[in-house]
């Protein structure tokens, strides 16, 4: 059943091709910008920076840009609007877990976005810039799973923001906070491996790298073998934690739920 909701998410996303195209253009533009800046950084560091050469850096840039349509780093969600408008009442009328249903739909939309936004981004990276990718099958298989977990962690976390609306009503502040922190620590602007040690330690203590940085690392073969499995393990642990917290907050929120708008 949650699978059906996931498909519904896919279908919803696919009904807005123009929005998807606009997202892709924005992705590509910022991808080129990132490429320029980070290539310059690699160049001035003498060809390698924190283990990245230009090929590896390009792979990072275009994969992370490609995931941007699928990993939710903006903090906004359908659920947030539903809590705000009171439409969440409808969700409680269904014989499903409210959290599970919301996240399944969002992950469905995220997975769909991999086709029109993820794939073109990777193609631009491959054809226009050139990027170094693994030559064996392993990293791709584990990487695909890691990407799926990453997408799910992001939507599960954004769900937490949405349910804070049970108490806050106005959740824009939470969204802005998330947007600024999540992007930085998920490794959207630069790999977190370029951070000073203390900042990297802070990032690694949060679930944000599990959303984008770790999947990109696994997929590009920056981490391999047992280390890669370990990274995915960390992702899964964060996913479990975030989902559990979501359950707790949903239950607590129902107690205070007042259903906006009658």
């Amino acid at each position: 059943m949650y699978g059906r909701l996931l498909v519904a998410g896919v279908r919803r996303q696919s009904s807005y091709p123009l929005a998807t195209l606009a997202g892709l253009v924005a992705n590509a533009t910022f991808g080129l910008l990132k490429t320029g800046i980070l290539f310059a950084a690699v160049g001035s560091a003498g060809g390698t920076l924190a283990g990245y050469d230009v090929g590896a850096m390009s792979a990072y840039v275009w994969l992370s840009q490609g995931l941007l349509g699928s990993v939710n780093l903006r903090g906004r969600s359908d659920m947030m609007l539903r809590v705000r408008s009171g439409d969440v009442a409808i969700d409680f009328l269904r014989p499903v877990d409210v959290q599970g249903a919301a996240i399944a739909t969002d992950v469905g939309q995220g997975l769909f976005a991999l086709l029109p936004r993820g794939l073109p981004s990777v193609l631009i990276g491959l054809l226009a810039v050139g990027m170094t990718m693994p030559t064996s099958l392993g990293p791709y298989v584990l990487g695909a799973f890691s990407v799926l977990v990453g997408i799910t962690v992001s939507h599960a976390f954004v769900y937490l923001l949405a349910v804070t609306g049970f108490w806050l009503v106005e959740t824009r502040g939470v969204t802005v906070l998330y947007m600024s922190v999540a992007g930085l620590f998920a490794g959207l602007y630069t790999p977190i491996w370029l951070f000073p040690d203390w900042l990297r330690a802070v990032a690694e203590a949060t679930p944000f790298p599990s959303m984008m940085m770790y999947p990109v690392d696994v997929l590009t073969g920056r981490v391999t073998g047992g280390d890669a499995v370990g990274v995915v393990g960390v992702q899964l642990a964060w996913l479990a934690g975030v989902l559990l917290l979501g359950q707790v907050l949903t239950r607590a929120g129902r107690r205070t739920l007042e259903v906006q708008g009658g």
Partner: protein
Amino acid sequence: MIIETTGLTREFRVREGLRRRTVRAVDELSLAVTAGESVGYIGANGAGKSTTIKMLVGILVPTAGEVRTCGLRPVQDRRDLARRVGVVFGQRSQLWWDLPVGESFEILATIHGLRDGEARARSAELVELLEIGDYLATPVRQVSLGQRMRAEVAAALLHRPELLILDEPTIGLDVLSKQRLREFLVTQRREHGTTLLLTTHDMGDIERLCDRVLVVDHGRLAYDGSLDGLARTVGARRVLVVDLAAPAADLVGLPDATHIRSEGGGLRQHLAFDAESTTAARLLFAVSERAEVRDLSIEEPEIEDVVRSIYAASR
């Protein structure tokens, strides 16, 4: 009992500037509905109707009191209850806004765990009865309000619930759409014995659909009984307003009707009549024997008026 509440209470905290005030939306409400009944739940805006319904289905947690719906505890057994109750909130949609109407039905069928064949048969039945076929493939956001409401009702009935709760199902609908929806609901009840609980501001809904009326006021039950009884209690009669060709004396002494007032020196006259004992046509005939009628209109009693007089009477 399919619905049973004892001392059901719900309070809300309302913030007014810096001060907080507690409002009792539902106040020690005790009511019981037997399976198969059709109950109209009426009251003015803010009387506590929607809050009651939300507690009945487990959306809101009661502040105090007991509630059992289909024998279940709504909050704790929410998911089990959801399989046995269908709810339509006139102001909110349970369909997927950007997906075709038909796909919403498919998703709901899956959510309710209906088997494929069963789901298809039930969906086809509802689509035919509610005349949804023409816009089954249209995204929900592009259908008209009347079409959407029919789809909402179908969505709520897909899993064959024993209890159907309708919160303002006819709000904003035109006369024809209202009529079709009411006819459908009457048929559904007759064929499946579905229990019906509906809130409305439309007296016509109550007259055509309900055999029992509950009036709630300030969160308390102000009346519980038949519609006739309600009409008798408050004198909720219809009023025939006739415009005459020439001023005439007050039309008193007409059978089963009472002259209320005249305007324009007798050009327009208001005649109250009890729809139980006579019809508008019979009254019109009686009037036309005494004066030439140029135009007419019929005023239905407003639910707000009914509730107001009940409230006044109960004090």
